[in-house]
């Protein structure tokens, strides 16, 4: 049975090599799927220079990335977590319990959240209140709070297209959802007047608890099928949108900018999203993107410090950098970030 012998010896070699597995010599990065394309662009350019291997970049979501970062210190844990929302105190606590005491926070730039619809559909000029009136759970009608039954955008706000409401919003595992809830739904709840009515009816021990409950009520979206949560990436939102031309989807600015042949973007509060309007803060729905770095791995995993320096260099995230070309919005305080990275500054406690 020569086949058996070959297999057996190959098995033996495999077993032996398991003991000789060498130290990790490339970075492992994981996290936000919004940051993923930016991180791969930098990783590719970093590896190309030939000094270090190309880092391995995984997606999976901001929360998953931070959880992986906080798993512990050592070669079998990741070095950097990409995140499209800020780290939470609970993450920091988990990190601390597992021995990850020094985390660096690197703000790489800003990303806009845009509403886009099919290229051949009508134009949308949205206000955050319109979005809330379309998909919020309870809306104001004739001065009273009622369950939302608006069928078309025109029902939600006169003047909008009479198109069936169908909103594709990111699922709760995405950092984008958090920002969407905060900057669109909560803001829209307030400006549409629903918040005041909800607050007046809210129960709670004191004002703070009442306010918290009111916000929670604002965040409860319609459940009659007009809101679809997308757990996958923006490509999934795009294909849903292609299947139902009535849909309005939530995308990242960079994704929209690379698919302008299929998508039409909506203005929010009269402002057209672009790198310029996001950078100067006039476009209301944007958020910073972060990398969370395990400082204890600097000097242990080769190339970590160099990768960070490379990432925040002007060639990448400066106003003319590669990532800016791709759709990231440059951080005006980049010089500070560069200095912090150079000094390996550990992040301050969350306020």
């Amino acid at each position, binding site marked *: *049975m020569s*086949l*058996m012998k070959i*297999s*057996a010896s*190959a*098995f033996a*070699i*495999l077993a*032996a*090599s*398991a003991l*000789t*597995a*060498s130290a*990790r010599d*490339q970075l*492992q990065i*994981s996290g936000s*799927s919004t940051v*993923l*394309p930016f*991180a*791969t*662009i930098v*990783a*590719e*350019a970093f*590896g*190309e*220079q*030939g*000094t270090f*291997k*190309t880092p*391995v*970049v*995984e*997606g999976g979501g901001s929360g998953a990335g931070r959880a992986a970062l906080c798993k512990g210190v050592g*070669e*079998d844990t*990741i070095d950097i977590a990409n995140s499209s929302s800020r780290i939470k105190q609970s993450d920091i606590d988990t990190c601390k319990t597992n021995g990850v005491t020094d985390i660096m926070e690197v703000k790489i730039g800003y990303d806009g959240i845009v509403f886009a619809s099919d290229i051949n559909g009508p134009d949308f000029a949205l206000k955050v209140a319109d979005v809330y009136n379309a998909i919020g759970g309870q809306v104001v009608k004739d001065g009273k709070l009622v369950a939302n039954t608006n069928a078309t955008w025109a029902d939600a706000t006169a003047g909008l297209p009479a198109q069936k409401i169908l909103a594709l919003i990111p699922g709760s595992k995405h950092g984008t959802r958090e920002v969407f809830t905060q900057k669109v739904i909560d803001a829209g709840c307030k400006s549409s007047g629903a918040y005041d009515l909800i607050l007046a009816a809210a129960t709670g021990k004191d004002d703070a608890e009442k306010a918290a409950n009111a916000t929670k009520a604002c965040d409860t979206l319609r459940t009659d099928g007009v809101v679809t949560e997308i757990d*996958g*990436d*923006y*490509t*999934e939102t795009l294909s849903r949108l292609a299947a139902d031309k009535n849909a309005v989807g939530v995308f990242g600015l*960079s*994704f929209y*900018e*690379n*698919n*302008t*042949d*299929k998508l039409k973007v909506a203005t929010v509060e009269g402002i057209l999203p672009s790198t310029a309007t996001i950078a100067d803060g006039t476009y209301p729905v944007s958020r910073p993107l972060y990398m969370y770095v395990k400082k204890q791995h600097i000097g242990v995993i080769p190339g970590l410090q160099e990768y960070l320096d490379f990432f925040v260099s002007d*060639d990448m995230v400066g106003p003319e950098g*590669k990532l800016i*070309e*791709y759709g990231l919005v440059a951080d005006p305080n980049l010089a500070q970030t560069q200095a912090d990275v150079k000094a390996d500054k550990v992040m301050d406690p969350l306020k």
Partner: protein
Amino acid sequence: MTAIDPTGAAGPSSGVTGHSLFAPDQRTNARNASEKRFRAYGVVAITLALLALLWLLISIFSAGLPAFRQTFIEIPVTLDAAVLDKAGHGDPKEMASVTTIGYGKQIAKALAEEVKAKGVDAGTLTDKEIGEMVSEDSAANLRNMVLANPKLLGTTVQFQALANGRIDGYFKGRVTMETAARDKNTSPEKLMLADKLRAAGVVVMKFNPGFLTMTDASDKRPEAAGLGVAIIGSLYMMFVVLCLALPIGVAASVYLEEFAPKNRWTDLIEVNIANLAAVPSIVYGILGLGIFINIGGLPRSAPIVGGLVLTLMTLPRIIIPTRAALKAVPPSIRDAALGVGASKLQTVTHHVLPLAMPGVLTGTIIGLAQALGETAPLLLIGMVAFVKDFPGAPPSGLFDPSSALPVQIYNWTQRGDPGFVERASGAIIVLLAFLIVMNTAAIILRRKYERRW
């Protein structure tokens, strides 16, 4: 005496009198009609299945075949020693300080000069914009070429660069003047220049072997994305599966079939093996993450872990056909061997197993083919990652990060740039080709060596 019934010969069961056998009665008609209907259902079902298959193949091939052809820009590039080797020693170590950005500028300059030399009207495009028609990937290629052979410095080389994804998309019909006008990554002027350059022979479209050999690429350069790492990763995993699943599976089957006593325990094991074959593959992924990565400390994204997980998944799928093949060997062979004094082990290794081998190999190959196309368990062990470097040679390369064919497809379908749609479909074609080859091998083995008793 009554008159003789003319049809009396047909017996009392004939029912209708005066009825010819050649003219079918009502019940026969009904039976025949129902058979006809049943056949029609069958034909409809087969037609539907074939149409679905046809539709699938057409959509995959029409979307994927363009991935095998690519637009190239062929230009002479002068490697300026003063820029690329400032120290002037021709030492690759010193020259490495010039980054790909430096090389990119050289290529852009060369293309702008070529446009002028060919007398092509570039319209309002600046030299920088002309340079953007070349893939960013070519700068890295040129740099590697020069660092590998510093003697090229100062000479002019005929360099073949990939065209930018949008230009490539234009020639493939994905990008039109209309979409280009809205696209900030390209412009109608660039497409017009590309048309002129194609007429001048600078821009050519041809077969792109790089799709099979190049590594993954970022969203900025879909034109440079290839399956190299994924194919190597898949091969490594199949190697691990073959090395582990075949011996373990065969040994288990031989023991269960030939040596084990038939009692409640072996029955229980048998039922469980059959159950394991039906467990959804994602469960093996969760198991792999828990055991091999979290407890065993093996690296993420490594082919060894993928191979181990797929081994677990494939084992029952090898054991079941192997046992069937062993069962199919007639007992007379065993009796004869035992009769001339062979031991039980000799009977098995000299006679039963060799005779069962075609069945075993067929089962193994089909198990491997299933494992090759499996995605779900690999999602959990970090194989869905951006991996740009080839893993090293085995055995240590089995521990390097790598990708795999099915997860590469999954990965590409999630990319933002529309250029990746064609890449993903192209990768499906490659995966299908591998599967067809493996399944054909299984069929040929079975046809050629199978013995019937």
